[in-house]
């Protein structure tokens, strides 16, 4: 079914009884050309682009729970292309272009909203770093505008400009940055992949990866064995456990990142704002809730819930930046499992096992990367060669020293 405004109106007139499921619920076949482990944003986007860009439609996506039940369903929905390092810069630039065409491409409203993103700075040194970053973004073909203190005040008059601890010197405005409806992104890609013939198999957990003579031949699942010559591991926080089924150790440690949502308020924050003193960032959802988050909990965890010291830290940062936030009630918080790489950048690469590919290490920046990650992973699985914008996301870059340490914070997993 093709969605349109007319469809919404006519369905509304006839009791909305004519809508059909957005995707099928097929039983797994005995063999596929390619299997994708993980039905999250990245996995579904990979399946979609495998079918659309490479004509590979005999593909299964295996999801242990339901579609979009992982990090794509629990994140703070920020979309941006404000990276500095060659390797990251062109990748996220490519991703932002795909975001801009996504709704037309998928025939799905993902509520992509380019409301502008402002990174605040609080010292001369931070300003210099942001000038440099802004120039890198412009050189890459994206947009960046340096705002002074008064420029920030025009956009964000509600910030506490009088504070002395973290005085606001200015901000870097990225007008094409913004947010999108995270669940809709998963559903849009799921529907698009399904329409092109991809089997989305839910409640199907992979329990083993079958390897013969150094080549992948299939997977074992809770719904039986499935054969395939190509298998992609795209499971975010669970990358280490799935890779261990193939006898691999990854440069990944899993950590918890917490986020918070307040009660619904009238429109008050128009942009996405990030506060350079910590990792505090905030935006307002279309439903009205303020969505904000901060740093990792800083120690390896799969608990899917956070600890209180980081809750306190995030609230402190919010109150320092915009005291008005203290009047809002926090409705809920959650902790997502992030697969942290030692340099803060992702991995999209082949493994040493023929036919086994991996897409992981998104740290806590995976949402904005969904379209380009799918695009590049599909290219890699279909052609066997890395896509030109993801060529530096190598699995062996830690051994060879070709790191992509965007923040310059070192080689510890929890520091990114």
């Amino acid at each position, binding site marked *: 079914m093709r969605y349109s405004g007319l469809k919404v109106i006519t369905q509304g007139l006839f009791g909305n009884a004519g809508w059909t499921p957005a995707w099928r619920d097929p039983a797994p076949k005995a063999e596929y050309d390619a299997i994708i482990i993980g039905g999250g944003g990245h996995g579904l986007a990979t399946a979609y682009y495998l079918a659309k860009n490479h004509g590979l439609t005999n593909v299964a996506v295996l999801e242990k729970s339901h579609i979009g039940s992982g990090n794509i369903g629990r994140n703070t929905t920020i979309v941006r292309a404000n990276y500095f390092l060659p390797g990251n810069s062109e990748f996220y630039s490519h991703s932002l272009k795909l975001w801009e065409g996504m709704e037309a491409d998928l025939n799905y409203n993902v509520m992509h909203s380019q409301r502008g993103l402002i990174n605040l700075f609080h010292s001369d040194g931070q300003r210099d770093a942001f000038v440099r970053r802004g120039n890198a973004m412009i050189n890459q073909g994206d947009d960046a505008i340096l705002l002074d203190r008064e420029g920030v005040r025009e956009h964000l008059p509600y910030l506490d400009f009088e504070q002395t601890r973290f005085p606001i010197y200015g901000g870097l405005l990225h007008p094409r940055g913004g947010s999108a409806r995270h669940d809709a992104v998963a559903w849009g890609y799921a529907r698009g992949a399904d329409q092109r013939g991809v089997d989305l198999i839910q409640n199907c957990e992979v329990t083993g990866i079958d390897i013969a003579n150094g080549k992948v031949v299939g997977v074992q699942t809770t719904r039986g064995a499935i054969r395939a010559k190509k298998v992609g591991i795209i499971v975010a926080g*669970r990358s*280490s*456990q799935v890779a*261990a089924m193939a006898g691999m*150790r*990854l*440069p*990944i*440690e*899993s950590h918890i990142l917490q986020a918070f949502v307040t009660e619904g308020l009238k429109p008050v924050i128009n942009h996405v704002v990030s506060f350079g003193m910590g990792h505090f960032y905030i935006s307002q959802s279309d439903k009205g809730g303020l969505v904000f988050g901060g740093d990792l909990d*800083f*120690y*390896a*965890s*799969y*608990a899917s819930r956070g*600890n209180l*010291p980081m809750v306190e830290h995030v609230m402190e940062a919010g109150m320092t930046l915009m005291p008005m936030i203290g009047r809002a009630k926090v409705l809920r918080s959650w902790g997502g499992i992030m697969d942290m790489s*030692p340099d803060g950048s992702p991995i999209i690469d082949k493994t040493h096992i023929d036919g086994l590919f991996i897409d992981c290490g998104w740290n806590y920046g995976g949402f904005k990367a969904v379209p380009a990650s799918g695009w590049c992973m599909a290219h890699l699985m279909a052609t066997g060669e890395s896509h030109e914008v993801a060529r530096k996301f190598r699995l062996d870059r*830690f*051994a060879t020293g070709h790191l992509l340490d965007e923040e310059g914070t070192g*080689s*510890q*997993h*929890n520091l990114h």
Partner: protein
Amino acid sequence: MRLKCPLCGDRDRREFYYYGAEDYLHRPAEGAPLADWDNYLHLRDNPAGMTRDLWYHEAGCAQWLCVTRNTVTHEISGVKLVAERTK
């Protein structure tokens, strides 16, 4: 979460600095092959369950601790001084 430091007793998590998996204790010998250094510095088992990792009692006795911990429940079943462990 609270950690029971062998020297200072039961203390708040905020007194401690987390370093990472205990792999950091197994430093390869000088001249070891590249793969050993990659293993030591970057590659991790990263279990969902029992793990052993290193914490520094920064706001206390300044000792390095080896903590046995469940990454799913945050339950801590053992804390040892790294100094005694490697003696």
